[in-house]
Every structure is written in structure tokens, then in C-alpha cells.
């Protein structure tokens, strides 16, 4: 039993890391630029598609990784340059409508280009198997790779934000947007770079998610809402918050769906317990978010402390 | 002994490592114009925030007309007769000056859970609102706030605050950013108000302060270091040392 708990915790950690990759980009864009970008999920999809197609054509998953990350970052910067740049001064609502339009455009565009069939994604060489992490419990190496990549990204972002000039501007921008502007920094360039970075991270998430789930039109929207939940729980604009929020959501969701139906089954008939358990574990993260916001309205690690 | 309109004791507020309000005691007498002066960052606006209820103090008490209001909400304090103006104007920019004041009159008149009759043409709201605008000398009543000049907005702030018919008016730098002529007019308006209600005035314009104030309290680094008449304050060596030395009024 305890081995199962450890394995489930590891699963929760891995799912949380996956969410972190998506949420980190979103929270940067959200917190620094004040832009609600619903099309973040589209960048996730672009990354996954580019990686899958290049990996198929070249036979190398690693080439696909590069292609996916580059395609997402490039797409992001184009979006920023063509659309979002004109909307910074606008209401959040205008951004919602514009990025909603982008979702429709990207989903249907990908359908027209690559069809409706889900894409095949190979695992990278050397990461197809599993490692025995405990006696009798093998764990997929690719999932361990996801955890490693996520932790590396977290570390990289930490260094970037705490130790570099861009990071200094990013930190300042999250709390005092006007002041950064007043300092004479080319805020336009900073925004393009930040948005590109956010898109790059979304693309990386898409590349990593590809072999685990499925590469398909609409894949971004499935996970978009959960990503927003993570960002808000963590505190908008805080990368540290995104990490903790993501781990909290990932572990909560995994443990709920892993254990609640079992507990319920001990107190009520099987099929009812299963249906109720599934409903409860679906609601779980939303209950979590509501509770967090009622206790700490700015999230766990507000950037505007 | 005279009953104080406002009586503050042991008020304390810290933001992280910064002590914005440090064991402040302050009394305002009925009908008095009491000025609060001090260098930038002395914690004047933070103090106003705690008096009106936007900021919760860490310790201490605020007593208004004999009632402890330390834990009351902003709205509840306004209902009891406190009102404030803002240093950075807080108005409804999409509405006319008249509508801004009329809304404040409406708030004074009781709850606003009236869903049917049009409020925009209600004489019960518009007449008092026009009277208030006249009182402060704002003529462009039908102009949208976003089209008013800075000076006009400051005056409108005052009218909106007066609409609450306060017993004590907290004015946060009503002359900030005004030209000389506008400042003079504001001084006259305040002088005309004197006596009909108590006023706690924060102001950097020392000329106006010394012309208007019955008593003055000096706040430095969150501490009230002296209270007294204009002459007493001028003569106070502690004030001269701590405040006048670095920020001498012209």
C-alpha cells in the first residue's frame, strides 16, 4: 500500500511539473504584460505538432524537440507583434475576445493543414522503457525525463529572474509596470521577448506532452483551464507560485482520483461510489482554488506582495 | 471638558520593515480646522487611510464622537459622519460633475436599493448636488469628469466629500498641483467652511496651512512629534530640527 502512495505521489509530481511548464509561461505573460492569453493552449498545440511532424520526418525526437520549441516561440512572437501589441492598453475583455478568435483560427488552420487524425509520436531513444524505482514498481523513464526537464526549467527561470538584467526588468515589471516604462526601458522589446519566452515554454510543454497523451487539434483547450487554475492559485505573475501551484494541483488531482473512489467504495455500493468519486475528483481542483482564493485572495505567492 | 470629534490613541501600522504609523495620538475638536503636516513619507496618507477605514491598524484605537470605530468598514464610518477627499482624485470619470455629486447625495440619503425610478432626473438628488457645486464654485456641472481640468477635479473632490454632510472632513492635499490662483480660491472655500464642521487637513502648501489651521500636528517618520497653534509649531525646536530644516516652506 505504501508503495502505491509513493508511486501516486510521484505521478502527481510529474503531472504537476507538466502543468508547471504551461503555467510558467502563462504567469509571466499574465503578470508582466497584464494580458489574458487564451491562445496559450494554441502555442502548446503548435509545439506538439511541430515536434511530432519533424520527429516523424527526421526520425529524431531531439530534432523534433528543437523544432517544437522554435515553432512555438516564433508563433508566439508573431502573435505578439501582429495582434497583442495593439491590445496592451485595452481592457482585459478585448484581449479575451481577440485570443478566443486566435484559438478558432489556429485549431481550424491546423485541421486544414494536417487533417483531423491524431499524430503518432515516438519516444526518444533510451527513454522508451522503465526503471524500477522501488521493488516491483517500474516507472517510465520518459516521465522521469519530464520531471527533470521541468525542474531544469524551474531552475533556469530562477536564475534568469533573480540574476539577470532581463529578470530584474521582469520582476520590476510585474509590480510596477509604469515605473519600468518611466525608466526608459524599451518595453515593447521586453514584451516581445517575454511573450516569446512564454510561448517557448508552452511549446516545450507541448513537446513533452506529445508522447504521453495525444497530439490532436483542441489538445490545448483541454488543459488550458487547469493551467489558469494553477496560475491563480500560485499568484499571478509569480513563477515560484506557478511551481507550487502546479505541484499542488497535480498532486491533489492525482491523489483524489487515485484514492477517493476506493474510500467511497468502503461506505457505499461500488458503482455509485465510482460515479461519485469521479465527480468529486473532477471538482477537487476547483474546490481547492475556491478555498485558496477565499483565504488568500491574491493566491499563495502574490507577486505584488 | 470639550468632547473630541476624533480621538486617536496608540495607532500603529507596519508594512514589512517600515513603520508607517508609530504610536500616534491625535485629537480633533468640534469646529476645528486641524492641519497635519510633515515631510514626504511621514505617513500622513496612511494615517488618513486608517481613520477612514481603508487600512486596518495593527494596534490602537480610533474613537469618533465617543464611539470606537476602529473595526468599522469605510461605508459604516461615512454613515457616522466621516468623509475624505483623495490626494489623487478618485472620481467617476465617465460621468458629469453633477452626476458625481448627485450620486454622493444619493448615498447620503440612505440605501440605494431602488430599482425602478430613473435617478438621472430626480430633483431630490439634483438640487442638493447643484447647491454643493455652487458652494465650491464649480460652474461646468454638465461636463464629463474626464474633460475637467485638474483644478476643477480637486474642487469636485471636495464637493463630493461635502455631499456626505460629514461631521469631520479628512482632506488629503486638496491643493496639490493647483496653480496659485486656484490655491487661493480653495483656501477661501475652506475658510468659508470653517466652523460648520471639523476638518483634518493634510497639506504641503504651508502658506495655506498657517492661514487656515486652528491647530497643527507634525508627523515625522510615523510619529506625532508636536501639536499646537501655528505660533507654537513655528517656535517648536523639535519641529524646526526634524522638519523645517529639510523642507522649509517658501
Amino acid at each position, binding site marked *: 500500500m505504501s508503495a502505491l502512495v509513493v508511486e501516486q505521489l510521484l505521478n502527481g509530481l510529474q503531472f504537476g511539473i507538466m502543468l508547471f511548464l504551461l503555467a510558467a509561461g502563462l504567469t509571466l505573460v*499574465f503578470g508582466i504584460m497584464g494580458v489574458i492569453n487564451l491562445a496559450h493552449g494554441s502555442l502548446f498545440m503548435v509545439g506538439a505538432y511541430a515536434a511530432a511532424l519533424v520527429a516523424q520526418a527526421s526520425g529524431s525526437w531531439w530534432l523534433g524537440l528543437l523544432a517544437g520549441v522554435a515553432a512555438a516561440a516564433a508563433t508566439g512572437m508573431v502573435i505578439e507583434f501582429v*495582434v497583442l501589441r495593439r*491590445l496592451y492598453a*485595452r481592457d*482585459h*475583455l*478585448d484581449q*479575451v*475576445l*481577440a485570443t*478566443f*478568435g*486566435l*484559438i*478558432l*483560427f489556429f485549431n*481550424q*488552420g491546423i*485541421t486544414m493543414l494536417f487533417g483531423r487524425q491524431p499524430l503518432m509520436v515516438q519516444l526518444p531513444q533510451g527513454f522508451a522503457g522503465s526503471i524500477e524505482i522501488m521493488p516491483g514498481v517500474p516507472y517510465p523513464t520518459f516521465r522521469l525525463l519530464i520531471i527533470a526537464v521541468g525542474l531544469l526549467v524551474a531552475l533556469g527561470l530562477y536564475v534568469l529572474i533573480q540574476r539577470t538584467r532581463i529578470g530584474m526588468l521582469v520582476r520590476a515589471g510585474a509590480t510596477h509596470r509604469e515605473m519600468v516604462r518611466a525608466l526608459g526601458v524599451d518595453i515593447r522589446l521586453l514584451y516581445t521577448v517575454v511573450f516569446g519566452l512564454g510561448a517557448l515554454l508552452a511549446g516545450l510543454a507541448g513537446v513533452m506532452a506529445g508522447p504521453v497523451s495525444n497530439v490532436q487539434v483542441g489538445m490545448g483547450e483541454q488543459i488550458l*483551464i487547469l493551467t*489558469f*487554475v494553477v496560475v*491563480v492559485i500560485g499568484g*499571478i505573475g509569480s513563477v515560484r507560485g506557478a511551481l507550487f501551484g502546479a505541484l499542488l494541483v497535480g498532486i491533489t488531482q492525482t491523489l483524489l482520483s487515485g484514492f477517493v473512489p476506493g474510500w467511497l467504495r468502503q461506505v457505499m455500493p461500488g458503482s455509485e461510489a465510482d460515479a*461519485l468519486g469521479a*465527480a468529486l475528483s*473532477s471538482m477537487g481542483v*476547483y*474546490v481547492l*482554488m*475556491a478555498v485558496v*482564493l*477565499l483565504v488568500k*485572495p491574491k*493566491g499563495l505567492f502574490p507577486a505584488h506582495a | 471638558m470639550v468632547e473630541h470629534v476624533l480621538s486617536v490613541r496608540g495607532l500603529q501600522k507596519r508594512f514589512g520593515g517600515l513603520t508607517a504609523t508609530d504610536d500616534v495620538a491625535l485629537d480633533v475638536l468640534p469646529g476645528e480646522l486641524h492641519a497635519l503636516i510633515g515631510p514626504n513619507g511621514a505617513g500622513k496618507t496612511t494615517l488618513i487611510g486608517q481613520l*477612514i477605514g481603508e487600512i486596518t491598524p495593527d494596534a490602537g484605537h480610533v474613537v469618533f464622537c465617543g464611539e470606537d470605530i476602529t473595526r468599522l*468598514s469605510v*461605508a459604516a464610518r*461615512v454613515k457616522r459622519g466621516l468623509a*475624505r477627499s*483623495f490626494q489623487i482624485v478618485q*472620481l*467617476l*470619470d*465617465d*460621468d458629469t460633475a453633477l*452626476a458625481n455629486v448627485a*450620486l454622493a447625495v444619493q*448615498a447620503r440619503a440612505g440605501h*440605494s436599493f*431602488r*430599482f*425602478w425610478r430613473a*435617478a*438621472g432626473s*430626480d430633483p431630490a438628488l439634483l438640487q442638493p448636488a447643484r447647491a454643493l457645486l455652487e458652494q465650491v464654485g464649480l460652474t461646468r456641472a454638465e461636463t464629463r469628469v474626464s474633460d475637467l481640468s485638474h483644478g476643477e477635479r480637486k474642487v469636485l473632490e471636495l464637493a*463630493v*466629500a461635502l*455631499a*456626505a454632510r460629514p461631521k469631520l472632513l479628512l482632506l488629503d492635499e486638496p491643493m496639490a498641483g493647483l496653480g496659485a490662483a486656484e490655491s487661493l480660491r480653495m483656501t477661501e472655500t475652506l475658510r468659508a467652511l470653517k466652523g460648520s464642521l471639523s476638518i483634518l487637513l493634510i497639506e504641503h502648501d504651508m502658506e495655506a496651512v498657517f492661514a487656515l489651521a486652528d491647530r497643527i500636528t507634525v508627523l515625522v517618520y510615523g510619529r506625532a512629534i508636536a501639536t499646537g497653534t501655528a505660533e507654537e509649531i513655528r517656535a517648536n525646536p523639535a519641529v524646526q530640527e526634524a522638519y523645517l530644516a529639510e523642507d522649509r516652506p517658501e
Partner: protein
Amino acid sequence: MRNVLPLALLLAAAIALPWAAEAMGQPATIGLATRIMCLGIAAASLNLILGHGGMVSFGHAAYYGLGAYTVGILWEHFRLGEPLFGLIPGTNQLLITLPVSMLVAGVASALIGALSLRTTGVQFIMITLAFAQMVFFLFVGLKAYGGDDGLLIRRRNIVPGLDLRDQDQLYWLCLGFLVAWLFLQWRIVESRFGRVLEGIRQNERRMAAIGIATYRYKLAAFVIAGMGCGLAGALTANYLRFVSPDLMAWQKSGEIMVMVILGGVGTLLGPVVGAAALVGMEYVLGGITENWQFFLGPILLAVVLWAPGGIMGLLGRGARRG
């Protein structure tokens, strides 16, 4: 009211629509228009809090769905002849189901609003979403009412003197409710309550400083908007003769919000115009190409970029110029 004449003409055109549609051999347009009326009520009620109160609720579909499900569940118990919880008998009388729908949506929005309104800004957007998702998953899990597959309402509700199986009469009924709701909302916006709401949108701090306990007013507006959505949902259930959790999914909340923004935030007719534009474009583009989303997306984008204030803003500018 300078705009009485255009409004009267618009209303006359709306009333005459069924005959026009028949004459042009496009009777299905009546059903489409009915759907627009229902969504128009939902969007207008969202606009009350979003456009006039500055509260961006991203969970409005929950009340829409609750209103619809109230009709569906009352029908189901009427059909089965078994009272709900052994107490509440089912019914198919519209004059009962509509008020009950609004009541259910109102109670739900009061509970959710009371909690959600403790937050503001983006946190408010997300917490309303969270509660709506909880309601959504609750209905997905409600096996007794079809769960994810939804609930069939075999016959429309009954109103004395009307035959709702006739699509023209259903349309006029929905149009009547839309007009009534818009009129009510117009009065609310112009009233003392509406002035306070508008003040809260512009500057909540100022409203507190003149002695207004803003929370109560925001909650009251939130509940009114929830009830409007409940009404819209109840009418939708009668039109669709089918309810499913789809009606309360976050995509639906987004769709209603898009209608408001597209039409024009804070305008009386904007939300209805937005509903008509969005549904109409889907219908027309969907009839021309299966890749309709590819074209709808950039159209929405163009509206944001070049027509701030939505379609009503565009019309207003056109009128001023002309």
C-alpha cells in the same frame, strides 16, 4: 429617449420575422432567431454585471444551465409521475417552471456570488469559473438525469392560450421575454441602484468613500443577472427540448461573454446584437464551408482591433458620421 423610432422599427421587424421567413422559404430562420433571443437574454443579464458593474463573471453558463435543468428535471418528474425528493411534484406548466428556474438560478448565484465577491479582478474571474465547473461536474455525475448525455424533454411546456409546439408562438414568447428583460434592465441601469452599480464599475474606492457598502450592491446585481440567465436557460430548454451539461460548460460561459464583448459592453442592445452576430455568423459560415472557424476567428479579431466598443460602437460611430 431619442432612439424611440429606430427601436420601434426594430421591434416591428422582430415581430414580423416569422412571416418574412416563411415568405422567403427560410422557416428555419425562426428557430435560429428563437435561439438568438434566448442567448440574448443570457448575454444581456451578464452585461448587467460585466458592463455596468465591472464584474467579469466567467461562470455565467452555470445559471443558464441550472435554469434549463430546472425545466428538464420538473418535466422528468412530471413524466414519471414521481415527486422530486418525494416532495416536489413535477410539472410542465411554463408559468410554474419559469419562475422556479429563475428562483433556482437566483439562489445558486446568491450562494456563489456571496463567496466570489470577496475577491476582485482576475481572481474573481477564476473563482466564478471554479464554482461553475463544480456545478458542471455535479450534473455530469447526476446519473438520474442522464449525466453527460443529457435529458430529453419530449414535449414543450404548456401555457394557457398558447401552443408552444408552434415555432412562431415560441419565438414570439421568447421575443416578449427578451423585450421585457431589456426594459427591466434599462430601468435598473437608470435607477438609483443602477447609478451605484455604474459607480462601482468606474471606481469602487470612491463609492466606499461616499458611504456605499459596495458588496451588497454587487451581490444584488449578481443575483439579478443570475436570474436573468436562469430565465434564458428555461426558455432554451423549451426551445431545444433537451438539456445537457454542455449548457453549463466553461465554453458556454466564454461564448456568452464573447457575445457581450462583440456586441458592445455596457450598451442596452449590444449583447443581443452580439448574440445575433455570433450565432448568425456560425450559421452562415457553417453553411458555406466546414472550415467556418478558420474565418470566424479572424473576424472576431478584426472587431477587437478595429472596432473597439464592439458592433454597437461601430454603429454609433457610423450614425454620428452619417
